[in-house]
């Protein structure tokens, strides 16, 4: 559809864009990324023909850019400019109608039904119909931007060039605009080349990305090949981290600030625990990075309140999460920084212990109810009914855990728990075999993310050894307390 061959160009003698070559297929959306001054806008101007190129060529459907007359080129390629002011005010409709200019010819060129339909469709797609008869200058920046998008769409060109289309737009309108454009590429096979400042938006919407660096292509490829920590850091000269998008397989980046915050060096100890008859509470002064399978705020996140709530053995609720949120709110815990779990055992039976390691202490909390113990290796044999009885395991670390270390901590803690059940001869009542856990066990790993960096947490690492020992000891003790409370043993 569009082929850029060894294009160089710039202003005066300076070559801002040097020897750039790439192709774009029909219906493809290509995002151009790069730091300020890397030549993104210049490249777009060379492609649109506003700036004459010093060397190389641009081919549209195998014909050179120069071989098109002005109107013919405008029928092939629409360009969305960056916003600018006007000397006189036009109505929205008149502005969008200008997009039909290349389709009109002759001195008395009349307004055809086709022109009208294109203008109406473009206004509908960008949701500006209700402003149709208003003056452009009375609209907000975001609304004006949408009017220009409509103008470009009304041009009905198979190629669309955009220069930071989401400038001035709030996130709802960013989404709306990019959804509209993306839909055009899918439904009408429009080919889009767009400059982006926002790497995440580009990664999310573009089929391929082109990363410019000092006037040259650093890399071109699918988002996962381009949005890499090493590449982005090298080109933008900023510390970043990449994460995954929650819904789409597209990488996202976040900035890592280099501002030295005056944080208090906080050490977490068992003193941070508080046990009442309603709940076991661990409260930190700073947010801890947490991974858990809790009822409230499961998954990963940063929290400072951890609540293990006691519920009655007969607790039954259709919407557990909602009920739990109300409960937490009643005690003054906000959803934003609280992780919430439930247990049926007495909170006073919780076992809390602190273990020393070379880098800082770890604290372990276990509540164990084993009335519902399950042997996971035999669970397929019997039909399970939900029942009361849960082992909640918390591991809180003074240190900086890597992602691997978080997951290894979960494995280590789970293995230790299973060993404790075996030691205590807790059996699955349905199979008569040694149980591995209960059907509703929960685990929580939290770390201060300050101090020593801990890359791994397997059983032979310093931290793994302490997690293994601690979870085992605490679980054994918790089970014994439970048995005593139930009167299973003397």
């Amino acid at each position, binding site marked *: 559809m569009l082929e850029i061959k060894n294009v160089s160009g710039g202003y005066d003698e300076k070559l801002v864009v040097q020897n750039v070559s790439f192709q774009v297929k029909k219906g493809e959306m290509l995002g151009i990324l790069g730091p300020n001054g890397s030549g993104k806008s210049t490249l777009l101007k060379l492609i*649109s*023909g*506003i700036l004459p190129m010093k060397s190389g060529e641009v081919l549209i459907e195998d014909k050179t850019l120069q071989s098109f*007359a*002005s*109107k*013919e*080129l*405008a*029928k092939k*390629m*629409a*360009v969305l*400019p960056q916003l*600018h002011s*006007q*000397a*006189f*005010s*036009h*109505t929205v409709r*008149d*502005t969008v109608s*200008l*997009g039909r*200019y*290349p389709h*009109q010819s002759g*001195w008395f*060129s009349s307004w055809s039904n086709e022109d009208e339909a294109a203008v109406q469709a473009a206004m509908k797609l960008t949701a500006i119909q209700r402003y149709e008869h208003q003056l452009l200058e009375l609209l907000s920046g975001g609304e004006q931007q949408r009017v220009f998008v409509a*103008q470009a769409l009304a*041009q009905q060109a198979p190629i669309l060039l955009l220069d930071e289309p989401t400038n001035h737009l709030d996130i709802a309108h960013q989404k709306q605009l990019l959804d509209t454009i993306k839909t055009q590429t899918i439904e009408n096979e429009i080919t889009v080349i767009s400059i982006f400042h926002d790497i995440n938006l580009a990664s999310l919407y573009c089929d391929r990305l082109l990363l410019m660096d000092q006037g040259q292509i650093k890399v071109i490829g699918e988002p996962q090949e381009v949005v890499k920590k090493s590449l982005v850091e090298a080109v933008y000269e900023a510390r970043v981290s990449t994460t995954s998008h929650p819904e789409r397989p597209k990488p996202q980046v976040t900035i890592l600030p280099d501002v030295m915050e005056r944080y208090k060096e906080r050490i977490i100890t068992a003193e941070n625990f508080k046990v009442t008859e309603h709940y076991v509470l661990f409260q930190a002064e700073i947010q801890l990075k947490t991974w858990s399978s809790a009822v409230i705020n499961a998954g990963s996140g940063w929290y400072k309140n951890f609540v293990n709530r006691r519920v009655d053995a007969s607790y039954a609720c259709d919407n557990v999460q909602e009920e739990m949120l109300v409960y937490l709110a009643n005690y003054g815990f906000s959803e934003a920084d609280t992780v919430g779990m439930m247990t049926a055992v007495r909170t006073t039976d919780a076992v809390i212990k602190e273990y020393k390691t070379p880098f800082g202490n770890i604290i372990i909390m276990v509540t164990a109810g084993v009335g519902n113990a399950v042997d996971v290796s035999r669970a397929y044999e019997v039909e399970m009914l939900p029942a009361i009885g849960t082992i909640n395991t918390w591991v809180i670390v003074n240190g900086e855990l890597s992602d691997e270390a978080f997951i290894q901590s979960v494995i280590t803690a789970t293995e230790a728990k299973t060993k404790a059940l075996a030691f205590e001869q807790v059996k699955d009542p349905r199979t008569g075999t040694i149980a591995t856990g209960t059907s509703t066990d929960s685990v929580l790993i939290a770390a201060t993310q300050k101090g020593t960096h801990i890359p791994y947490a397997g059983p032979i690492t310093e931290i793994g050894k302490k997690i293994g020992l601690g979870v085992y000891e605490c679980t054994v003790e918790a089970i014994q307390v439970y048995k005593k409370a139930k009167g299973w043993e003397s």
Partner: protein
Amino acid sequence: MSKSMIGYIMSISVLLLAIWLGVSVGSVKVPIQTLWDTGADAIATNIVWKIRMPRVVLAGLVGASLAIAGAAFQSLLKNPLADPYTLGVSSGASVGAVATLFFGISIPFLGIFTLPVFSMVGALVTMLLVISFAKLVDRGMKMETIILTGIIFSSFLGSVISLMIALTGEELRQIIGWLLGSVSMRGWSFVQMALPFVIIGTFLLWINRRELNAMLFGEERAKHLGVDVKKRKMMILIGGSMLTGTAVSVSGTIGFVGLVVPHMTRLLFGSDNRHVLPLSFINGASLLIICDLVSRTIISPTELPIGVITAFIGAPVFAFIFFKQRKKGGV
């Protein structure tokens, strides 16, 4: 009915009214029927056809030319302060005219046309100089370049005129009178001389009405929309200069019309150049016909220069419309 339709009906009505008044009002009252009544008084017919009608037509053509040229330049240069005189073409025309008076030039076979012909030559030479100089400075001929070049030329030529005024003796009154503008005692021959240029110039602007709309959003945007900016810009510059040069050469430098009539038109009927151009043309004609009428009747039998009257009447009218529209929040 659309806004532009109302605009055309109103503007044409005002024009017809202006023509009627222009023809019938004066030191001798002449009924409008004289124009078509074959049995009318011979003197009245003579006054109407030989004196008043050519005067009204010439005033109309001058006003129309200046207004449409102003509208086009304002859009092209994206500058609400632009007017037909921005490019300096009028200064060139004035230099030609003032030089004719100053040196007392009279070329035998041109006769009374010596001055307008010299003036037109002055306008033409200036236009070529301005365009070539602007091109020399910046091959793309950006709007800023054109405006600055126009300012350089008009101030330089303005000083040439001042020099001639400073050095002149008895021609002073004549020169000042010419510079302030007048359409009196010109007759049909001036109309004939101006008409072809007015038609060609207006046509050149009118076929670029949609391009002017696009260029209001900037040259780059216009180019993206498919406008052949280089070609169109040249057509508009030549068309506008032709109209300005013609108007100045037959009537002197009449101010205000070219600057304000397009603004009044936009305020009243919107800024779509498809309508702003023709409506400015009509309203420019009306304004100048009325101003001419006032200039020759207000302290009759003495005639005031028309340039004195245009702003005198035009400014309050503009102020009124401006105030009304702002109040409505319609601008």
